[in-house]
């Protein structure tokens, strides 16, 4: 799965967890770009992503996610 495909798969998850239908994700999207994306929903997002991709992140990985691109990179590493 390339980054674009990953982002397409992530978008509905973000829309659902953050309850915002207008979200458009790019590699450089950060929490600052989406009002509903706060420290609390960040972890809810992680849980939803872990479920959808059947992966498990470490707490160091979670703390290191600065944008959607970082998240995609780590998912790619995990699912090979």
């Amino acid at each position, binding site marked *: 799965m390339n980054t674009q495909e990953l982002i397409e798969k992530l978008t509905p998850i973000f829309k659902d967890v953050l*309850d915002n239908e207008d979200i458009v994700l790019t590699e450089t999207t950060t929490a600052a770009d989406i009002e509903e994306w*706060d*420290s*609390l929903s*960040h*972890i*809810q997002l*992680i*849980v939803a992503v872990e479920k959808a991709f059947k992966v498990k992140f470490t*707490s*160091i990985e*979670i*703390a290191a996610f600065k944008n959607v691109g970082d998240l995609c990179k780590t998912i790619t590493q995990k699912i090979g």
Partner: protein
Amino acid sequence: MVFNSVAFIIFFLLTFIVYWLIGSKNKKLQNIFLLFASYVFYAWWDWRFLSLLIFHSTFSYWISTRISNTDNEKSKKSFLTFGIVLSILILGFFKYYNFFAENLNQLLFGIGFKSSLVTLNLILPLGISFFTFKILSYMLDVYRGTIKATTDLSEYLLFVSFFPQLVAGPIERATTLLPQIEKERTFNYNQAITGSKLIIWGLFKKVVIADTCAGYVADIFNNYHLYTASTLLLGTIYFAYQVYADFSGYSDIAIGVGKLLGFELMQNFDKPFISKNITEFWRRWHNSLSTWFNDYIFTPFFTRFRDYGNKAMYMGIILTFVLSGLWHGASWHYVFFGVLHGSAIVVETALKKKRKSVSKKIKPWLYNNLSMALTFSFVLITWIYFRANDMVHATNYLNRLFSASIIQMPGKLQYLPWIALLILWEYWQRKSEHPLVLKGIPTIIRWVIYITMVFTILYYFGQEQAFYYFQF
């Protein structure tokens, strides 16, 4: 030494002159001088506790260096645990020992044992909750790799004891303060002017608004049984503005003093009373503490137990706010205050989607104003627990507040104009960097305002009331 004292003014003038005479070329000497000044500032209050501050910060420097120098994950963790445990023991001994001993004695007595843990006559070292939190965040940041451990002891000691924020915050992180200590600082005229204006505005809020307000609040809270419910309601509003003017005033002075020395410190307050929910309130009120609890308690907790879903999230919120309540003071009424705020945030989070759909059905101005009124009312009521002497006092106050005399004319109205002035002024300058920017006002009038303000401060100066948050 408090900011609103003659001693501080003389101390700061001397520090300012010597600091800039040393000059930015001698950064190392400047830092050592600032550290010396910070220790004088602290020792002025009680020289005996200076050794505690020095010990605690030197110890955490040593721990952090050890964490940073070892590659072994296990030893890293052991050093961190040692550092955290010792820091919490120091804070715990001075701040929570008596609370613990009294409650344990009562508990044991309740189940039929006679326990005789003695309570001690302890003095709470000034600012201990603030500098301990700074130290804890530094050790955790080094452990997590968020920052590299500094190899300069004097720079680290200055980070912990930097006098503008030593005794009541903002609880600045090493990630933003240490780089400023490490680099050269040059005198910047505009920065110094902004700093001076912030000091004037902070002193105005503290000396003129908060200290005068404190008298009314103390009277209404201590003699609540003599006043009508409407006066008690006014008392809660006075308290809200007293504590806001006091603490945000302190923060403004700290930031202003920092600017005069070439430092940029973080904002701690952002118009908290216009918050539309409690989650937002804690982003606008004492932000440096909220982000601390978020980064080092809530997020790690929720991350660790995230597989339990919402249950873990709600538990994390309550735990965070119970600890935040306890941070304010070792007493059940602070814990209860924390539980109330934590519960409110749990309810808000659980109803997030519902709230959003309701907000789409109502006119935005109505929804926003109703949310603001509801949030402010909740803050007022919970602050009764914050201000009261104990749980019984708070409950009695609340009982009387919700009684028929709420429709009577309140007493003690004479203070209201000051609060109205503060609200209107902040509303007027809401788009400015700070309330004394006064953009578009002719220079002469601006100067008249500044001078009037300074004279008003001087007129009210002199009682040297301690800042409300000094007790925490």
